[in-house]
């Protein structure tokens, strides 16, 4: 691999990695506060996609379309918790896991019935297909935008978690929920906030994801939720810093395996990446940064 090729792939890795990092963060955020794995998380990406589709049909410019996608996922996430998970607040981990599967199926079914099983195209600005020529290095504009938005989101989230009262309360709640309540942290409010942030992260990642795939179908969220799950397990579930690092690790692994594997082995790139993840978890079952506290 030549240096310029390496630079190109590095940007690709940062770009894909930041999508995975945002996805893993959203999943980890809810896990940290509530101890629940939300498998309907991928459906938030799907919802972002269909909201973008609706906004596109309404004739909105792409920036508005993207914003609608992010907000729709955020609102859907809060509603999901209110309607499906709150009544089961004290239920077991497994009950909540199954409930989230059911919610995922319900949302997929609804889109299948209401729209179509087939994918619908979402037009994106032509700019996204262009590439910048920096000396010998060709970098896709979309990759730069994706990595940039990923970085901005991470910085914004970090400063929210560190500086705001609500952010500090969330970190306290994810370390020790009962004690946080004893100190006056309102359980319902902190959980709603966790779902809101989780949904917004899924929305941002979803818009970036759909900007690459330029279409949406009822199962669009499947791959993102799996990748988010893998990335957050690599990082140590519930650990926010770990989720980010896990996301970038997974993105880098995928991009460089794609680039380095000989053509005949390319179909196995995904499998090879998963094999490496299994090997890591074999050695460190708690993940690379595993403890059950949000460390951001």
């Amino acid at each position: 691999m030549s240096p310029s090729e390496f630079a190109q792939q590095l940007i690709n890795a940062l770009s894909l990695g930041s999508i995975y990092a945002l996805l893993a963060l959203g999943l980890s955020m809810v896990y940290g506060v509530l101890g629940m794995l939300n498998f309907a998380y991928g459906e938030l990406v799907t919802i972002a996609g269909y909201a973008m589709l609706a906004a596109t049909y309404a004739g909105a410019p792409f920036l508005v379309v993207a914003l609608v996608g992010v907000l729709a996922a955020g609102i859907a996430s809060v509603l999901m918790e209110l309607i499906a998970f709150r009544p089961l607040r004290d239920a077991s981990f497994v009950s909540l896991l199954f409930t989230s599967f059911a919610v995922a199926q319900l949302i997929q079914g609804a889109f299948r019935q209401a729209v179509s099983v087939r994918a619908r195209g979402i037009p994106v600005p032509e700019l996204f297909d262009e590439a910048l020529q920096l000396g010998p290095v060709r970098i896709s504009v979309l990759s730069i935008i994706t990595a940039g938005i990923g970085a901005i989101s991470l910085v914004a989230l970090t400063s929210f978690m560190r500086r705001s009262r609500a952010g500090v309360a969330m970190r306290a709640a994810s370390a020790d929920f009962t004690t946080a309540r004893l100190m006056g942290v309102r359980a319902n409010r902190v959980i709603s906030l966790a779902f809101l942030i989780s949904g917004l992260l899924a929305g941002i990642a979803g818009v970036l994801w759909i900007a690459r795939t330029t279409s949406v179908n009822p199962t669009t969220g499947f791959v993102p939720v799996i990748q988010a799950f893998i990335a957050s397990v690599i990082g140590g579930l519930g650990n926010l810093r770990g989720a980010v690092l896990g996301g970038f690790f997974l993105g880098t692994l995928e991009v460089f395996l794609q680039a380095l594997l000989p053509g005949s082995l390319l179909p196995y790139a995904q499998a090879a990446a998963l094999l490496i993840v299994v090997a890591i978890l074999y050695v460190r079952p708690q993940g690379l940064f595993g403890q059950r506290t949000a460390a951001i």
Partner: protein
Amino acid sequence: MTDDRADEGAATERAAPCLLDVAGLTVAYGAVVAVRDVSLSVARGEIVAALGPNGAGKSTLLRAIAGAQKPQRGTVTFDGRPLHGLTPEAVVRRGVALVPEGRHVFPNLTVQENLAIGGIARSDRDEMQADAERWLERFPILGDRSGQLAGTLSGGEQQQLAIARALMSRPRMLLLDEPSLGLAPLFVDRIFELVAELRSDGVTVLLVEQNVHRALDVADRAYVLSVGSVVASGATDTLVEGELERSYLGIGEAG
């Protein structure tokens, strides 16, 4: 079991209005009854100790008052209003704060941030900041480490932080669960000094302790619990040693 609130030896406090009143409280974890039909009262400004061996239900009693454990039966009244059935976050807003057993500081938060969470129910941010600074001065060890993660503090430092954190909500009543457990003697002295000082701050205290002698030194009255029930109570200077010993050596331990 008597639900007569007028305990022997409490004659001096009887005139003062009763701040906390627990009546017929029963708390169970599944089939295991941890607290059985317990009644007790604490007058405004009093320091009252709840003593008893491991498994006597002391911690459960405090957790039930604080709203962290739902009672099966009975009532908890604070300043004339019912507390039972409220969430923990509502109880602390009524003016009752718990320092949990085992300290439970937030290890991933700095000392400053732990104090901020203690005051999360308050809306007077400037005064809160002043309160936090006062506590950091009162506990110089914490003041030196205000930007440090609470998980890196020693047990004694964490206990001081846990107490300061609870006091950040400016409670009228503090529930202290085993504050001296596992601490070096020097810190134990410091903690009991602080408990005594709380009286002059106008904070009423219900104290659960394994360290019977230190607790009796600082408290006005004490209740002795055994296997979930109150077996003796009275002013600390009149509590017969024999009653205490019998309850500690007596019958098996529950949950």
